[in-house]
C-alpha cells in the first residue's frame, strides 16, 4: 500500500510588497506519495519555488494545511520547523549554496552531523562520483561537481524528502543530464521521495507525477505510468 507522504490542502501564499499584495499561490492542493519522483513544472513566476519553500519549511503559508507524514507543518513554531528541516528535508539548490570555507567532504559531513540517522558522508560522496574530490574546496570544483556535492549533502542527511530547486538551471546540457541521472538513481536506489522543480518540460518525462503550476494555481496533475529513462530525454 502506497502511503501519502505529503498533502497540500488549499494552500495559499500572499506576499505583501509595500502596498501591493501579490498572490503567489492560490488554493493549491496535491499529494505526493512515498517513493515518488514528483516534478513541479511551470514557467517563471508560476509559484514553483513558493511551493518548495513552503514544503521545505523555509516560509509560512497564508492559509491552508501542509501535512507531512500526517503532521501539519504550518502549525510548527520556529524551533520545530528548524528540527523539521534538520531531520526530514534535503535541499538541492540551483546555485548549490555550498559553504565556501569547508571542503567537499566537510560540507557533506557538516550537514550530516546534525541528523540522527545520517548516512556515511564518504560513502555518499563515492556514490555521486566524487571519490577523488574529497578535499577540494567549492571554489576548486566545477559547477556540475558542486551540484553533485550539494546532492550528496542532501542525501547524506537521509531525509524523508529530497527537494531540488532547478537543479540543472545553472548547468550545461551534458552536466545537467548527469545531475538528473544522479537524482533518478537516488530515487530508485535509496527509495527516496524526490521533488524536482523545473521549468524544463523535457525533464518532466522522468517523473512519476507531474504537477503543472500556472499563475499560482494548479493547471494539471498528470500521473506518468511509463517513466522515461535519462537517455530518452533531451532538451
Amino acid at each position: 500500500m502506497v502511503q501519502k507522504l505529503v498533502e497540500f490542502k488549499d494552500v495559499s501564499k500572499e506576499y505583501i510588497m509595500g502596498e501591493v499584495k501579490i498572490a503567489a499561490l492560490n488554493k493549491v492542493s496535491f499529494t505526493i506519495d512515498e517513493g515518488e519522483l514528483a516534478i513541479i513544472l511551470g514557467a517563471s513566476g508560476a509559484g514553483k519555488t513558493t511551493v518548495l519553500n513552503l514544503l521545505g519549511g523555509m516560509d509560512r503559508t497564508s492559509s491552508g494545511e501542509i501535512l507531512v507524514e500526517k503532521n501539519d507543518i504550518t502549525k510548527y513554531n520556529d524551533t520545530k520547523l528548524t528540527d523539521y528541516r534538520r531531520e526530514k528535508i534535503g535541499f538541492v539548490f540551483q546555485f548549490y549554496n555550498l559553504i565556501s570555507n569547508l571542503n567537499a567532504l566537510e560540507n557533506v559531513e557538516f550537514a550530516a552531523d546534525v541528523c540522527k540517522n545520517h548516512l556515511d558522508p564518504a560513502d555518499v560522496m563515492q556514490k555521486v562520483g566524487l571519490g577523488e574530490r574529497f578535499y577540494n574546496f567549492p571554489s576548486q570544483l566545477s559547477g556540475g561537481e558542486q551540484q553533485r556535492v550539494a546532492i550528496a549533502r542532501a542525501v547524506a542527511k537521509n531525509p524523508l524528502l529530497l527537494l531540488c530547486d532547478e537543479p540543472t538551471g545553472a548547468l550545461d546540457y551534458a552536466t545537467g543530464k548527469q545531475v538528473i541521472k544522479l537524482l533518478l538513481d537516488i530515487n530508485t536506489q535509496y527509495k527516496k521521495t524526490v521533488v524536482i522543480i523545473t521549468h524544463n518540460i523535457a525533464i518532466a518525462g522522468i517523473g512519476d507525477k507531474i504537477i503543472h503550476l500556472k499563475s499560482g494555481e494548479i493547471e494539471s496533475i498528470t500521473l506518468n505510468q511509463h517513466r522515461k529513462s535519462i537517455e530518452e530525454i533531451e532538451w
Partner: protein
Amino acid sequence: MNKLFLKLFRDIRKSLGLFLAITAVSAIGVALLTGFSVTYSSLKNMTDSYYKQGNLADLTAYYLKIDDAGIAKIKSINGVTDAYGRITIKASGVNNESNFLIHSVSTDEKIDIPALNKGNFPQSDNECMIDSAYAKANKISIGDQIGITANGKPLNLTVSGIFNTAEYVYLVEDPAKNPEPDHKNYGLLYIDKSMISRLTGNGTYTEALVTLTKSANVDQVKKDVENATASYGFGHITMQKDQPSFSQLQSDLDTVKAISASFPYIFFLVASVIIFISMSRTVQSERGQIGIMKALGINTPTIMLHYLSYSVLCGLVGSIAGNLLGVFLLPRFMLNVYSALYTFPAILISGFGLYVTLSTILVLLFGVIASMFSTRNVLREMPAQCMRPFVPKKVQQIWLEKNKKLWSKISYKNKLILRNILLNKQRAALSSIGIIGCVGVLMCGFGLKESINNLTTNQFSKMQKFDDMVLLTKPVSYDAAIPFNNGNILQTDRLSILQVTMNLSKDISTDLYILPQNNVSIQLFSNGGAKLALPSDGILVPYKLAQEYHIKVGDIVAVKLESASYQNATIQAKVAAIDVLYLSQDIYMSDEYLQTLGIPGYVNGYYVTLNNKSLNGDVTKYLAGVANVRSVTSNDTLRNSLASAMGTMNTLFYLMIIMSAALALAVIFNISSINIFERRRDIATLKVLGYHKNEINSLIDAENLIITAFGCIFGVLFGVIIFRYLLIITVSANMYLPYQISFSMVALSIVCTFAFTVITNFLLQGKIRSIDMVESLKGVE
C-alpha cells in the same frame, strides 16, 4: 555626477548603523583632540596673560633680613631688570583656625602684582586685602574685620580689597600636610609696606622678588645674587619653574597636552580601520556596478571620488559632532575640574580655530587614505573584468590542517570558525586593533585607579602610622618636655621638619624630617618593599630624587638646613639607603645621625599615636588648645584630602572606561556586521540545513571571542607601554606613582573587553536573525 550623490545618500541610508559607528568613532577622536587641545590652549593663554599681567618673578631669593640697600645691590646685577623687597610672615586667625600668609604690598611694586577684584589696596595701617578664594569660602566682604596674630602680636585689620594673584594660582599651606588647597582655612593677607616696620620692629624684608632679562645667564645671576647679598643672611633662591604653584599648574598643563597628543590618534586609527574594511567590502560587492559605470564612460577619478565621498562625509559629520563636543563641552568640563583646584580669573575658551581645523583635516585624511587603499584594486580593473562574476579567493588548506591528527579531532563547527579567521587574516588583524586599543586604554584606567589606591594604602596605612601631626609655633630644644599629656595618647615622637637645599647637579629644595630611630610614627620602605629603619649613619633619599639626580647609596651630598634653629648650617650627609615616597620627595634622617654630626636638634612638631583611634576628635581638640601648638592634623584628614585632590585622575579613569567601551563595541560590531553580511548565504544555508539559532550565533560569537582573545594578548603588551607613558605624563613633579602591572588590572581589563564582545555578540543576534533564507538562496548577486 548628481546621480552618484543620490546613490551615496541611498547607500548611507541602507547601512545607517555602519555610517553612524564610523562617524561616532571619528567624533570621539575629534572630540578628544579638540577638547584636550582647547583645554590646554585656553588654560595656557589664560595663565600666560595672567602671569604677564602679574609680572611673575623669575626668581625669588630668601633672606633672614635684607634692606633697601641689599635690594639695590641685586638690581645692579647684570641680567636683572627689576627687584623688590617683600616681607613674608605667617599668621593665624584669632577667631578661627585659619592660617595666613602675609605679604607686604605696595602699588609702586611691579613684580608679582596682585589683581584687585573689588575694593582698594590697603592704604592705612590697619587695612589689608584678602585673596578671593578665602573671602569666598569664609564669606568675607569689604569692610569686614579680621583678627590675626602675627609675630605674637594681635592685630585687627579691616578688609579694604579682595584680590587674585598669579603668584598663587595653586595655594597650599604645606604640600606635605595637605596637597590640596583648603581655602576655608588658609588665606593670603596682603598689608601695606608701611605696616611692616610696625610688625617686625625694623624696615627689613625677608625675600627679594627679581625679574630677569630674556638673555640672562640664570646660573650666573644666581651666583651673583648670592655673592652680592651674602651678608644679609642669604637663604636660598627659588626659580619660577620650581615655585610650587607654578610647577603644579605646569605639570597639569603638560598632562593635558600629552593626552591631546596621544589618545585621539588611537581613535583616528580605529575609525580608519573600520572605513578600510567596510569600504573594501562595499567596493567588492559593487564591482558589477563599477564595471557598468566604467562601461558607460564615467572616468575612474569620478568613481573614486564617489567612494571617497563616503568617508569624507563620515569625517565631516564626525568632525562637526566631535568639534561641538570638543569646543563647548569637554573644555568646560575639564576647566571646571581645574577651577576647583586653582584660583584664577574666568577662562575664555580660546584657540579652538586651529584645533578644529587640525582635527577635521586629520579625521578626513585618515578616512580618505583608508578608502583610497581599499578601492584602488577594483578601480584598476577593466570594465569587462569588473562585470564578470567575482572569482572567489582560492580557499586553501590552512596550516593547522597539515597536522592531520589534530585537525581530525576538531569539530566541523570549529573547523569553519578557524578557517574563516585564518582565511581572513587581514580582517581578523584589523579587528584586533580595536581590541588592542580597548585593552590598552582599559589597562591605563584600571592601572591608574589601582596605583592611586595602592598609594593611599601605602602612604596612610603602612607609612604614616601616626594618628595626629602636631606642629609648633616656636621650635623648642630637643630635651624640652612634651607639652601635652592625655590618657588616650599611646606614644609621642619628637619631630623636626625643615626646608633644606640639596646641592646636586642643581640646587634642589625639599623638606627634611628628623625623627628618633625608635619612633613608631613613620615606617619607610625600600623600592623592593622591605622595611627600612632610620639609619644611624646617614640619610634616606627618596627613590624618584635618587633616580633623577643619580644618587647612590654611599654618596655624600651637601644638605643646607634652611632654618634659623640650625643656623642655616650645611651638612655633608652620607646616603645610607634609598626609600620610596609617593606624595613628596623628602629626606629622612634620625636624631641619632644628627647628633653624630655634632648639631643640636630642635623640635617643631610631634607625631602622636593613640590608644583608641575612634576618640581622635577629642584628642585633636585638646591638642589644638595646648600652648605653642600651631596646628593639629589627623592622618585621616590627610587621607581624605588626598582623595579629593585625585579628582582629576578619577575623571580620567571614567573617561578611559567609556572610551575603551566605545572602541570595542564600534569595531567588533562593524566588523562582525560585515562578516555576517558577507556570509549571509552560508548562514542562510545553515538555517536551511536545520541549524538552530544559537548554533548559528555561536559560530559568529566564537569567531569574535577568538579575535578578542588574540587581541588581548597584544593589547596587554600595548597597555604595558601606554600605561607607563600615562604615568609619566600625569604624575606631577613631586609625586611618585610606582609603575606596576598587577595581575588584577590585567585581568579586569581582559574581563571587561570580553564583556564588551559578549554585549556586541548579543547585539549582532538581530542581524543574524534577520537573514532571510529564501532571499539569500535565490541567486548570486
